């Protein structure tokens, strides 16, 4: 069980988080249908680092993007996304 450093709450157990999808599968509004399906239905799925979208679902509920290694599970970077985080 990973220890994930939530940008808002600090280090918390993975059990508080849920994985949503990879950044490369996000379909941004206004994408052409073929491009949207290409993004929705494929993943780079590297045996290495990838950018993933997680949510601190059972904590502060904020969305996060983390760069994580798929073999070591090491989290190289993590950032908050969504509405501007308040001071």
């Amino acid at each position, binding site marked *: *069980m*990973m*220890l994930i450093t939530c940008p808002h709450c600090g280090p918390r*157990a*993975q059990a508080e988080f*849920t994985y*949503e999808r990879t950044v490369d599968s*996000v*379909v*941004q*509004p206004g*994408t*052409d*249908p073929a491009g*949207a*399906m290409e993004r*929705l239905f494929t993943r780079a799925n590297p045996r290495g680092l990838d950018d993933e*979208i997680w*949510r601190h*679902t059972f904590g502060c*509920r*904020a*969305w996060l993007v983390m760069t994580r290694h798929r073999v*070591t*599970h090491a989290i190289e970077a993590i950032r908050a*996304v*969504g*509405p*501007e985080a308040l001071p």
Partner: protein
Amino acid sequence: MSGPQRAGEPGTIRFTFDGKPLLARRGDTLAAALLANGIGLVARSFKYHRPRGIMAAGVEEPNALVTVGTGGRSEPNTRATDLFVYEGMVARSQNRWPNLSFDVGSILGLAAKALPAGFYYKTFFGSAKRWMFYEWFIRRAAGLGDAPNAADPDRFAQRAGFCDVLVVGAGPAGLAAALAAAEAGERVTLVEQDRVLAPSLVRDPQELDPAWAEATAAQISALGGQILLRTTAAGYWDDNLITLSQRLAEPGQQPPNGAAQRLWHVRAKRVVLATGALERPLAFAHNDRPGVMLSQAVRTYVRRFGVVPGQRVIIATNNDDAYLTAAAMRDAGAEVVAVLDTRPAPAGATSGFTVHNEAMPLATTGARHHLREVSARVGGKIVRWQADLLAMSGGFTPVVHLHMQAGGAALDWDDASQSFLPGAARQNVTSIGAAAAADPIGPTPPPENSGKAFIDFQNDVSLGDVDLAWAEGYRSVEHLKRYTTLAMATDQGKTSNMAALGRLAEKQGVAIPDAGLTTFRPPYTPVTMGLLAGRSERDAGAHLRRLALYDVHQAKAPTWQPLGYWKRPRAYPAGTETLAQAALREARSVRTAVGMTDVSTLAKFEVSGPDAAALLELICATTVAKLAVGRGRYTFMLREDGLVFDDGTVWRLGEDRYLLTSSTGGADRMATHISYVRQFLYPQLKVSAVNVQEHYAGIAVAGPHAKTVLAALIGEEVPRHMSTVPAAIGGVPVLVLAASYSGERAFEIYVEASKAEPVWSACEAEVTAHGGCLYGMEAMEFLRIEKGHLVVGGEIDGRLTPHDLALGGMLNKAGGYVGAEGLTRPALTQTGRKQLVGLEALDGTIPEGSMLITAPGQPAQGHVTAAGLRVLDGGSIALGQLNDGFARHGELLIASSPTRGLIARVRVVAPHFYDTGGERYRD
């Protein structure tokens, strides 16, 4: 006199073994107590049912497994060496019939030559049934103890722990490390699997002794450190998470506080492994008899438990440590017949014992509870001795299991000790003490007859089996393990892995570190399943979700219906009514008078802000912005792939405030979906979407009298169909939505859940006064099927488009909703797709879930998603999905359920059976 025995008092704790009453001293393990009672034969091996005794004194014991406890507390396969005797303990031997001394299964030992490793892959051919015939016998011969035959009466606790330093093992090294950390002001947790601190100091008191251990522990505690005895670090996971299993009671013992064990999830900043080392057995013929023990174990029984496991002992060793055992036995009054040292002279020369150098045991013979004779090759000749005990030491294997479980960790080969030592690690973990270094050993000669030279004792794997696997091409260490079952027993290869690796390396002609290494997987020692399940009792880790009005319903003794983690009233049977009778009565009440039901579990989201409509037009595939304040409409939602995944209603409560409802089962999924769209895709929107599913309890009132009931309740004009007004009932503010799922004029009353009870009572009084009654989910199902309303999980099964569900006309023409792109995929508009239809029976009752076929033997063209009846007139009707269903109205089909032997002829019709013009919604 021969065999194991104890001098002095036998002890005061009463226990039984195989029904025989015995006495133990306080602090005895079962193994110690059995030896003290002269019992050497304790178990039978897995495959050949060979007689086995006690080999070790710790968790590595492969042989001495017993079942302990009774009823639901009965624990099979418990190591007698890891079980402290308690008053009244009931222990039984296993894997024998009719009894331990005379075990019919031991005839398998006679056939051993025909049953080598992997024999079952080479025979028992023929049909699967034929294999199952043989398998029946194999399954009964296999296994070890019996599973309990009752539910577990105890609970298991689970707890989180956090510390700066977790020290595993309270031996001298672990205690010192824990003290140093505590003195440095760190938050320390120290765990020890034994029930005493530093058991090795009890065995070998030198400059440090048990009193030092007690004093050190006291200092650690005084500095705020936490010391957990009888606690095993079982698993090492990501980011220094360690799972600990803590025994609060011994196996089979009634726990003092209700919890038998506690599972800890400990997150440590740093981990120190002081896990010690395990002694290796030597491989020679019949090295598995009762009376052949590990050298340090013999010493432990003598020094810690005051039990002398034999009177005439042969020591066989390749290292110096075993001489301490010789000394301990001599001190205890036993005769040290000879020390067989594999090393050349002068090893052991100054020990004062009769030492034979370049000597290795050849074989043993034995009596029931101990050995009779040991033979050995000494230099070039064979020598025999009368001896009842053989203490062996093949060197030491540092316990690197946790180090390796940590992932990304390395092992370094140490040639002098012929052992793997912990190397670099990715996680913040270090190993110290005997876990990090081992003393040098001499040669370990291979046995002259490998057939009965066991290396994996429990699974009866001999060096001969390893040789066979090699000859047959199973040459990777993993193939070897899997083919021979080596290291797959309950001791997980703690005493066998190194011997197997050595043999494999010999065959390959490489050094041991080049022969490969198997993966170390959690747990270090087996962990009780109930402990892992932990937490609440029998709840499958899923608390029941209770309605706000749970007690109100419960008082009416409804039939409950599970839905996800919820339970909702399914019907309220009166008197002797069956469920079906009650549901029909309730449904008829709605059609003819009025009924009320609890709709609290529906997903609800309050969406407010200037961009509320914009967000909702992303979530909903219908238009929203055009709704007038106070109005509502039906809506549905698409996944990004364009398929419908939920439906509900959306209401405009104020200029920029909306209420969205959707299905109960999809509530969490919808909450995530809305949050993803709002927070991730459109963070710039000025909108707040709050999950108010549990804030509001919901009461639906439906039927021709619903309007009258509502007028009486709110005392003002009731909203027209698909309108909403705020109101109050008995002074409690409510929100009234005029929406209908039943097909009748109906209202949903939403009230803050904590204030729901008086509102419910007021409604019930009014409904009853108008000749109505409560209705449950079953009646609701009848009503909605007749009306042709959809249900998520039924008609909306995540595989259909809005067009397939006849909702295409409601799609927001402007697009822009989530799923619009996915909906353009070519196959979603092709012919032959499943489409929503109604079905009416020409005869019989349409079975729910049945297949729609044109004729018997033909493939399915669709299926029945929900079956009901015409509530007032009777007659079986249903909704279904049918290939090209829209174009097939009027066609006759068969609804066939072979699993239930039910069949009905049906006509395909439009999916509306009641009030198709919607007249009943109008006032």
